[in-house]
């Protein structure tokens, strides 16, 4: 397993190195001012802390004015915003995570207050105010006395109660760590065949936001494409000529001439004037027949829907118009 860690480290090194090694011909180097604007983090050893100082006693009125309304005058508040107390509860059923019980470095507290607090006006505190409030919050957890003065040199030296409490022996901390979940794949009683149990209508996603071609944004790539759901074509009465092709009537019967069976118009001519012609031919169509036009039999066509059969016969008797 250590190999994969090593490999990851090498990859990281290569990735960082390649930024300088390869010029993509775009952009420009960041100016020192731009880097300073982004480089705002404060590290456990104090790197990144600005000059300044403040005492816990100075922090008290600031804390009362800006912090106490949420965190409580003594940092007691509720489970979510308490910042004092809870020492020793981290492994209990109801862990209370506070500055005193969880935080491993005091510099993190300074960084967090400076960047994120007060909640309604983050970054509004000066460096000195942040040192003072940090000192007071540490005092609420009995980590520093009320007269303690913290600055960029003394803050990193504050020893937090939970300094040694963090572990990397878990899945996120190390590739060798114990993961939170055990991925035991279920490979029994598997379904043999895939069945689609339900699906969305065909145009459901396309028309989710209406017809995009009606959208007024002219730059949108979809602006020329209508996404209106394609409605199934209304059942148009199929023309008898098409029906005759569909059911392969025209394979044996020409319109005018005999192919294998008699031509449509020949049939019309033969039965012209017979009142029962339609019923007779319908019966022949369903049952099949032979002899009237030659020895080649006409196979039964009962599979053709009755309505279509009727349409076809009427069309033939009318002389198979185009």
């Amino acid at each position, binding site marked *: 397993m250590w190999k994969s860690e090593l490999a990851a480290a090498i990859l990281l090194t290569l990735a960082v190195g390649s930024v300088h090694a390869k010029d993509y011909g775009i952009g420009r180097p960041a100016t020192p001012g731009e880097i300073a604007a982004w480089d705002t983090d404060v590290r456990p050893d104090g790197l990144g802390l600005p000059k300044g100082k403040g005492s816990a006693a100075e922090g008290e009125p600031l804390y009362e004015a800006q912090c106490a309304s949420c965190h409580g005058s*003594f940092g007691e508040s509720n489970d979510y915003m308490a910042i004092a107390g809870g020492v020793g509860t981290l492994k209990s059923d109801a862990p209370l995570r506070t500055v005193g019980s969880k935080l491993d470095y005091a510099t993190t507290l300074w960084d967090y207050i400076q960047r994120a607090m007060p909640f309604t006006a983050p970054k509004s505190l000066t460096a000195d105010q942040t040192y003072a409030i940090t000192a007071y919050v540490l005092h609420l957890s009995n980590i520093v006395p009320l007269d303690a003065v913290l600055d960029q040199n003394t803050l990193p030296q504050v020893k937090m109660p939970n300094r040694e409490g963090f572990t990397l022996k878990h899945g996120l901390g190390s590739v060798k760590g114990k993961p939170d979940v055990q991925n035991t794949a279920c490979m029994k009683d598997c379904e043999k065949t895939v069945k689609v149990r339900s699906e969305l209508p065909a145009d459901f996603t396309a028309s989710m936001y209406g017809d995009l071609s009606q959208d007024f944004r002219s730059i949108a790539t979809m602006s020329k494409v209508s996404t209106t759901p394609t409605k199934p074509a209304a059942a148009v009465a199929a023309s008898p000529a098409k029906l005759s092709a569909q059911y392969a009537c025209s394979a044996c019967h020409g319109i005018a001439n005999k192919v294998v069976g008699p031509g449509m118009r020949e049939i019309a001519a033969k039965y012209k004037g017979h009142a029962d012609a339609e019923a007779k031919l319908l019966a022949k169509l369903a049952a099949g027949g032979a002899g009237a036009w030659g020895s080649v039999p006409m196979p039964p066509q009962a599979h053709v829907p009755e309505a279509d059969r009727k349409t076809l016969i009427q069309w033939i008797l009318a002389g198979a118009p185009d």
Partner: protein
Amino acid sequence: MSDPMRIRASVVGDKVEVKVLMAHPMESGLRKNADGSIIPAHFIDRVVASCKGKTVLAADWGPAVSKNPYLSFRFSGAAKGDMVSVTWTDNKGDTRTDEAAIA
């Protein structure tokens, strides 16, 4: 013996504002533990605050008050530097007194 109270007293206008955080389990006597037996009631039933020998606040509390109770009150007739003392007594007879100077 329980943990000390946190007391802060400060002059606000012509009055003194006192804030107290007491460390107490405040068991109501209605909760059950993991094996279903009732956790015995254990709560503060009397709080007394005094300043310069005079009682400025006396309260009878019951099981409805939360764990680690927070109490804030104001009184007049004291100046900066005077000592405020707060005493609680619970239903088991335990008691604790802490004091702080008015800032």
